[in-house]
């Protein structure tokens, strides 16, 4: 239930979209003013125009498209691999408590260490090439997808399973007709987390060891003291993250609607 907020003074009638941009616009204005009057040295805070120009430059000379493309490809590959394995393991554990008994402790131990912790280990193991990036991203997606798939399958209401048993569904029929459809929304939640984690992991691994990609653009900007490039890269990372999240949220709400229906 939504609480009526504490009685708020009437806000001038403005669409929420307009109100939402007031703050960023104000911040931008403050930032411009600060740059104009040099409140902060430009080595600490470049002006918004500089950041804009840097972004434009990156877009124009192709660096932006190239680096974003590389990052996106890595995420897609790593996420696909990681979530596929996560789905398999999650389903296996969800359907067979025995499998869970065998695998879960090792999995938990593996999941307990943050992705960031595994990166140096994997660097020594597989080097700093493309396999490292894919592995790290896959690991990041793998854990939440596995856990949510497992939880989703376990949470299938037993009454549905009983209905299936009543009609003498085979194991396969039970899985296809009852368990999986009922578990799809939580599984999708896992995929959504997985994608967010994968994106974060991409930035981590590109910061640590890469010669290209959006994370690398950040490092490069930092070392060359191009704060404008750096902040531009942050903006792009945010936009991509936001887009991922939106897409997944839309699909998720579709699935939820279907579940309610």
């Amino acid at each position, binding site marked *: 239930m939504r609480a009526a907020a*504490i009685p708020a003074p009437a806000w001038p009638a403005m669409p929420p979209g307009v109100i939402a941009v007031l*703050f960023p616009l104000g911040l931008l204005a403050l930032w411009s003013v600060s740059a104009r009057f040099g409140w902060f040295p430009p080595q600490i805070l470049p002006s918004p125009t500089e950041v804009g120009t840097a972004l434009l430059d990156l877009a124009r000379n192709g660096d932006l498209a190239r680096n974003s493309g590389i990052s996106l490809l890595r995420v897609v590959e790593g996420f696909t691999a990681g979530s596929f394995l996560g789905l398999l393991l999650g389903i296996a554990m969800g359907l067979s408590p025995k499998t869970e008994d*065998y695998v879960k402790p090792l999995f938990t131990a593996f999941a307990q260490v943050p992705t*960031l912790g595994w990166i140096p280990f994997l660097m020594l193991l597989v080097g700093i090439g493309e396999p490292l990036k894919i592995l790290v991203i896959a690991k990041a997606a793998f854990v939440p997808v596995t856990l949510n798939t497992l939880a989703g399958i376990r949470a299938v209401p037993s009454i549905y399973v009983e209905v299936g048993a009543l009609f003498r569904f085979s194991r396969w029929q039970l899985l296809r007709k009852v368990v999986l459809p009922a578990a799809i929304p939580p599984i999708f939640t896992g995929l959504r987390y997985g994608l967010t984690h994968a994106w974060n992991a991409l930035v981590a691994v590109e910061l640590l060891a890469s010669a290209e990609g959006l994370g690398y653009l950040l490092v490069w900007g930092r070392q060359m003291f191009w704060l404008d490039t750096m902040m531009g890269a942050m903006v792009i*990372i*945010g936009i991509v993250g936001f887009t991922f999240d939106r897409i997944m949220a839309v699909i998720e709400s579709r699935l939820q609607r279907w579940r309610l229906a």
Partner: protein
Amino acid sequence: MKRALRGTVLPILLLAAWESASHAHLVDPRILPPLELVAHTAVYQVTDEGLLRNLAASLLRDMAGFTLGTLAGIAIGTILGLSRIADRLFMPSFNGLRQIAILAWVPLISIWFGVGEAAKIVFIMAAALIPVVLNTYEGMRGASTQLVEVARTLTFTRWQLVTRLYLPSALPSIATGVHLALIYAWVANVGSEYFMTIGPGIGGLIIAGRERFQMDLVMLGILILGLVGFLINRGASAIEARLLRWRPV
């Protein structure tokens, strides 16, 4: 008992394979150091290299950033959750900003806050802040209108409404946020040790292990990371259960 035994099968097999591969020199022992070497490194690090001091430094920094981030997060989440104006004005921006992968802030924060502990703590704080704001916000918005009516008939003041109704009713949600914040802060702490200036800490230990090509050191670091993460998680769950004992189970 039987189930617990099953759980040990895979880890034991894995370790056995590791140990034999390492001893049979199937794999470069620099990549898979024998387990006794890892154990030895652990003992040596504790006794001679001040591992515990490193760990304490990491934890102290973690706690500082976590505490600041959590307090700020609760305050911000409360304001956003209770004031419609603040919600409309700031929430969309907050939602946009939080999409920037947290590690992407590292360079900017290092430049803004310089070398030393301050930048690291700010970074950890930012990581802890996000889940707390979101969950506090959700919790505030989820407060029961029915209880708000009760509060009105009892002529609660605004402050009483916040402290006696909104905050407690958001508590389960806030607890979830704080729990997440603990986990995120720990990850961010490792990140800060990786990407910001060198200082004592477990992340620094892992990086040093990689640079010196000492897998045993890297593995020791990973072990500690996992262990601390596990303990933090356990501790948070225990505190949560204690704070929320009024909830029906």
